[in-house]
């Protein structure tokens, strides 16, 4: 089968400090930094991967979670072909706001493939949101669900590969 090349834009959204930047860094650069530096606007990271005989260039849009970017954020969603929504299992407020992020996604990007990530699952002692809650929310969003840790790499590659495959299936 002939090789084909694709470029996919994926937006990564969720409240501030849930680990969006760290998840992308883990996937794209195999690194993790514990210090928190809020994203200003949007950070665009490029990662190439191969799925079957397809060469895929991912444009990963790490979108600032802070409310000060709300006015321009709608522009960042435009043209996205897939989405990763992230919450932090130790902070229930970040789980509660997933539905707001989801609404924005549908409004500005439409019904694109999406996955829900329950991040920071390595922090088992202080975990507040359990797997069944995450699975229920993912079902409501018609999204795949992964439990991830940017710190130790749990399920991170799988999550990014899955969203790439979902987009590919729709292409």
């Amino acid at each position: 089968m002939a090789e084909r090349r694709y470029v996919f834009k994926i937006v990564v959204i969720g409240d501030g400090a849930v680990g969006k930047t760290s998840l992308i860094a883990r996937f794209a650069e195999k690194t993790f930094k514990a210090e928190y530096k809020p994203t200003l606007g949007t950070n665009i990271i490029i990662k190439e991967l191969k799925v079957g005989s397809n060469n895929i260039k991912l444009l990963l849009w790490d979108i600032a979670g802070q409310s000060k970017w709300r006015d321009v954020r709608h522009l960042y969603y435009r043209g996205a072909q897939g989405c990763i929504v992230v919450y932090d299992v130790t902070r229930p407020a970040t789980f509660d706001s997933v539905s707001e992020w989801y609404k924005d996604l549908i409004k500005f990007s439409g019904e694109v493939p999406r996955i829900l990530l329950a991040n920071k699952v390595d922090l088992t002692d202080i975990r507040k949101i359990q797997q069944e809650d995450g699975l229920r929310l993912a079902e409501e969003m018609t999204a795949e669900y992964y439990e991830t840790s940017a710190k130790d790499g749990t399920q991170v590659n799988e999550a990014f590969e899955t969203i790439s495959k979902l987009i590919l299936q729709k292409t």
Partner: protein
Amino acid sequence: MIVFSALLTALNELMGRDGKNSVLRYAGLEEYINQEVPPSVDESVSFDTFSALLSSMQELLGHGTHAILYESGRKFALYLTPFGYSLTDAVSKLANWLGGNVIINVEKDDDEGIVQIKNNPFCLIKEMVSKSPSCHLISGALAKIKEESTGHNYFVKEMLCESKGDSHCEFHIFKRSEVKKDG
């Protein structure tokens, strides 16, 4: 010459510091990352540098959407042109800034204006071959210039584009509404 710094300022406002840096990084222009870029820097900016910035913007920000490039163009115009310039004055200044062999013709300068650009450096720089008009940055800039000169809302649609083999780029300006802008 403030084209380069105006573009970076527009990017910074629209995409934030990290967004601007992403575009610069992809363009291979690391020396401008996290730097304030004063207008005077343009004197030392080469054609290749400007070209790299535009190509990077097109590839990163133009994927699947025109909206960000169009909005970047609006911001770009805001930093590029003083308030109150007529469309004719502003585009002739734009021609001077861009340099080269560019020929700009403002065919009409009323509510339904038409601007033609031949040897459009934004097309030459990108060396683009496109199936549809691709100068969204210029479209946004023209809309903003027109708005600032009249106080009304406009949108601009590019009908012909050198990148798709037309003899020139042609932008049609439409008045959006009669509502006066706040300023």
